[in-house]
């Protein structure tokens, strides 16, 4: 068994997650299933869609992640055999594989063609966010970036509010602003947090807006909290229509030296999981170096990087003066 530099960092910083998943052996089996499914789905897309296989976000994620592992070549042909791995028995590792099973039942080709009902994808996405392995991943991230140090927090693309709920359950920030373009997600978040949508009184504000760059949204945010201490980005960048513009606007909301707490799945991370998640409406897929280039271009300076891609990109960046 060999360990990369990133594996060692994952062990160092993500020990709780690995322990809950049954240890390295069990987690590796789960990750191997993610790769195995990615190969299966890519083969299906190539067979059904031919040269159009990577012209949708699911195909693009599969192509980039399998290419990064040397499993396919530049033409998308399989060049490395991937054996069927043993099934993990640890409950958390097993349910990670179950998520892949459920996505597979929808049919990767059907998803890529946009033929799967949006409600079905939303149920699967909600299921993922409610699974135990995801909860541990979320909690471990919040521990690692020391969320308790930040009193005024803004979270873009809050989706159904589980991350905000996890923060508010463990920590008493003075102000927490969560926003999302989707009215259903805003309602779900507000309901979970016991708040009213678009009512920014008290310590929680859940706002429906596609971007924080608009003058009205910016004004609401500034009135609500003044300057923020931290932006929380947990698997968020790929939902943004224009990540660079959004990051620049978020930087303008931060106090000088405010932090950007980043966790982001990248193509070098678990390939099957990335493919599943981008199918829920992502607009982009990133390599870990793309993430860093983006944050740098938006005016942030890297303070500390914990992991590059295993289990996903994790770092703290500071708003440059």
């Amino acid at each position, binding site marked *: 068994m060999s360990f990369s530099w990133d594996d060692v960092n994952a062990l160092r910083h993500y020990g709780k997650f690995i322990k809950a998943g049954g240890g390295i052996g069990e987690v590796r089996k789960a990750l191997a299933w993610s790769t195995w499914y990615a190969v299966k789905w890519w083969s299906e897309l190539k067979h059904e869609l031919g040269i159009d296989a990577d012209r949708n976000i699911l195909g693009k994620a599969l192509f980039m992640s399998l290419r990064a592992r040397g499993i396919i070549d530049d033409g998308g042909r399989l060049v490395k055999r991937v054996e069927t791995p043993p099934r993990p028995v640890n409950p958390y590792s097993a349910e990670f594989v179950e998520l892949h099973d459920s996505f597979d039942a929808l049919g990767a080709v059907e998803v890529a063609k946009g033929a799967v009902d949006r409600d079905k994808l939303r149920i699967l996405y909600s*299921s993922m*966010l409610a699974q135990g392995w995801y909860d541990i991943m979320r909690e471990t991230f919040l521990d690692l970036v020391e969320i308790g140090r930040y009193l005024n927090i803004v979270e873009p693309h809050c989706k159904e509010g589980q991350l905000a709920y996890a923060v508010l359950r463990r920590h008493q920030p003075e102000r927490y602003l969560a926003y999302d373009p989707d009215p259903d997600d805003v309602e779900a978040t507000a309901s979970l947090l016991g708040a009213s949508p678009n009512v920014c009184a008290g310590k929680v504000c859940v706002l429906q807006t596609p971007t924080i760059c608009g003058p009205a949204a910016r004004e609401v945010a500034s009135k609500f909290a003044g300057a923020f201490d931290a932006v929380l980005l947990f698997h968020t960048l790929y939902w943004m229509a224009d990540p660079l513009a959004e990051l620049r606007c978020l930087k303008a909301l931060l106090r000088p030296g405010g932090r950007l707490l980043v966790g982001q799945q990248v193509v070098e991370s678990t390939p099957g999981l990335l493919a599943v998640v981008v199918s829920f409406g992502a607009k982009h897929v990133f390599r870990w170096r793309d993430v860093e280039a983006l944050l740098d271009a938006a005016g942030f300076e890297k303070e500390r990087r914990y992991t590059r891609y295993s289990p996903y990109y994790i770092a703290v960046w500071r708003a440059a003066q």
Partner: protein
Amino acid sequence: MSLVKRVVGEMEGQRALADCEIKDFEAFSSLVPPSLQAAVLEAIRAGSVPPSLQPLFRRLRDAGVMVCL
């Protein structure tokens, strides 16, 4: 925070459920991973939804997979 306070807090976060049932078992069993199916059915039986499952319950109702009186 003490354990008792945490348990009380978690109980307060639970949402009471009206009488709910799974209407479309085929969709439910194919879309919701097996270990989570058990948690959903348990919540229906108990008549209250823990916060971690509230968004999923909302989606299941919106899609007509679950109906609540």
